[in-house]
């Protein structure tokens, strides 16, 4: 078992395409680190460099304190689970799982013992003599896991191992993989584009975008204190609402104007955040869908007048799409879209299924004033003092 360190690791593909740009990341011994981000963010390239399947253009990569930049995959003592499982089709489950041990020169009895041990952990005992094609998707996935764990490697590398499974099986295997990782206590780097997997499985989550690391933190910290608009928009489903607001003078509070509505938030934000002081300066206000409540009449706290545009009933909750009345422009909330588009400021609110909300209703909503986020309107980074 070992720790993993990326120090300034960069990968430039032919044609001057930078897939990973100066990645600095430390994975502690036994830690479950999730690399998450949209397609093309460099997460898989980072993992493949760790596995030794891609050359490193610059920087240093070490496993267990040993620099492995030029070490062959077979000598890195890491095990990898591939997205398509990469099971050897002509070998049985037992042969697939024991292949690495056989190559290592372990005795047949020892290979057999380890394979059976892993099969027990993975509940694969009765399938050991089957070929991969005679297995279901979930079973194949477990064999791929088995092939990794029999080796007792220094680190597990997993490249979107659940993306080929159906939704229900994915939930089951999510729990299963996390259970096995904790049981074995091996440092794990897990790549996914699914933020739910990232939130539920990782001890810490590294969010990547365009080859650059955006933030590394435990899942709840990422959710509660995103370092920038991208992380705020990427983590959470539906994502955080991000709306443009202008600073406006206010007595004893921080005054904001959203669209053409005033919104006063507690003065404490002025102390905890580097909010611009000049009147009319722009900031991006972030609010999670669950931090928006419908209120009636005169209430205290930051409120906005909105109109219900769409209502999505999900059973356990409803998502209500609200347009801020008489609004101006809003930045798109889509994480991969940088351009501000002219359209009414929209908010998505998560409400209880009992909420009597219909399309066309005009509602006053209150934002949870304890849980607001502010981002720099040009750089997108958080204005929170301790994170900025």
């Amino acid at each position, binding site marked *: 078992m070992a720790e993993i360190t990326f120090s300034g690791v960069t990968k430039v593909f032919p044609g001057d395409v930078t897939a990973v740009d100066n990645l600095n990341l430390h994975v502690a011994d036994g830690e479950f680190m999730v690399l998450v981000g949209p397609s093309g963010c460099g997460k898989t390239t980072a993992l493949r460099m760790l596995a030794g399947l891609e050359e490193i253009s610059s920087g240093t990569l070490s496993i267990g304190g040993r620099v492995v930049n030029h070490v062959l995959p*077979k000598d890195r003592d*890491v095990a990898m689970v591939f997205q398509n499982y*990469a099971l050897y*089709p002509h070998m049985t489950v037992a042969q697939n799982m024991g*292949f*690495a041990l056989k190559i290592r020169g372990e005795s047949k009895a020892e290979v057999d013992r380890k394979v059976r041990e892993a099969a027990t952990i993975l509940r694969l005992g009765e399938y050991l003599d089957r070929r991969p094609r005679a297995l279901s998707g979930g079973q194949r996935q477990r064999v791929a896991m088995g092939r990794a764990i029999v080796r007792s490697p220094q680190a597990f590398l997993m490249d979107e191992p659940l993306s080929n499974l159906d939704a229900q099986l994915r939930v089951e295997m999510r729990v299963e993989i996390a259970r096995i990782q904790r049981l074995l206590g091996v440092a794990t780097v897990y790549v996914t584009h699914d933020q739910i997997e990232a939130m539920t499985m990782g001890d810490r989550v590294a969010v990547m975008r365009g080859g650059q690391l955006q933030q590394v933190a435990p899942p709840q910290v990422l959710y509660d204190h995103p370092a920038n608009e991208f992380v705020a928009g990427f983590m959470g489903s539906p994502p955080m609402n991000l709306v443009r607001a202008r600073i406006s003078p206010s007595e004893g509070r921080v005054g904001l104007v959203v669209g053409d509505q005033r919104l006063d938030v507690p003065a404490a934000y002025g102390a905890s955040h580097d909010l611009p002081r000049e009147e009319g300066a722009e900031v991006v206000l972030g609010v999670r869908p669950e931090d928006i409540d419908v209120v009636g009449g005169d209430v205290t706290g930051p409120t906005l007048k909105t109109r219900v545009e769409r209502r999505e009933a999900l059973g356990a909750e409803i998502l209500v799409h609200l347009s801020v009345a008489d609004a101006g422009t809003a930045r798109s909330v889509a994480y991969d879209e940088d351009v501000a588009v002219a359209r009414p400021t929209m908010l998505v609110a998560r409400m209880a299924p009992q909420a009597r909300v219909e399309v066309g209703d005009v509602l006053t909503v209150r934002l949870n004033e304890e849980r607001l986020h502010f981002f720099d309107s040009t750089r997108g980074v958080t204005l929170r003092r301790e994170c900025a």
Partner: protein
Amino acid sequence: MTVSTVGARAPRLTLRRRRQLAGALFALPAVALVIGLIAVPIGQAIYYSFTQWNGLTSTWIGPSTWTQAFHNPNLWTALENNAWLLLAVPFALGLPLLIAMLLHQRVIGWKIFRSIYFLPTAISWVVLGLVAERFFAFQGTLNSLIHFFGLSHVNTNMLGYESTALSALGITFVFTMIGTNTMLFLTGLATLDTSLEEAARIDGAGRWRIFRHITLPHLSRFIQLAFVMTVIALFSALFSLIFVMTGGGPGYATTTMEFLIYQTGFAQGDFGTAALYGLILFVLTAIVGIVQLRLIGSDE
């Protein structure tokens, strides 16, 4: 919800039966062709093997052709030559496999090499035979090459001697098969999931082990197919090479079953015996094909 069944009639044929019927109807033209082009000629060949036939008229003579044929030493020589030529098969598979592996590694200039290796496939075997004949001739390219490397006292004439002519034919045959088999193996390699190789690399396998445990098992189907095609070509497509290079000689040194059929039927006008030889060759080829199909089938 209820569905009214008033007026509904039970169909005369079940859906399954109708599908079977339609399938049979669609297959009928193909079956007719197979019968007309394969079964009928085989039946005719069997019939003619019991006759004395000069190409125009046939006289029933019973099984005497059969008894005489098996006492003909030329038949055994031809069968022996066919058996010896089988030794060329491993080379006709191994060399293309090696070339395909190298091309698959994307060595520098692999596209040019690929075209060069495939070239013989696009050229008539008659032309290849002529080239080979010039290559192995006493004043041919082979001797020039040997002399170029300083061995001026060595003079070969492989096609001129009974002991070496068959080898020269075998070498030429290997050369003619390189293009097709290389392409076949390259196709096989292109269908190999690269993540399997990567998984094996991470599992600790080196180049040889990856080839032995991942690439070769993946290619087994392609190798089996290449094997069948090569053996069948060896039994039934060497005619043009032999005709151009040696004419079956010296003596009967390069006469294969296929060439013997030609000689017996067209040179000696004994179509009855030629038909019998044709049947023997057909049975031999069929055995190879069936054994291979069984091997392929047993894997499924």
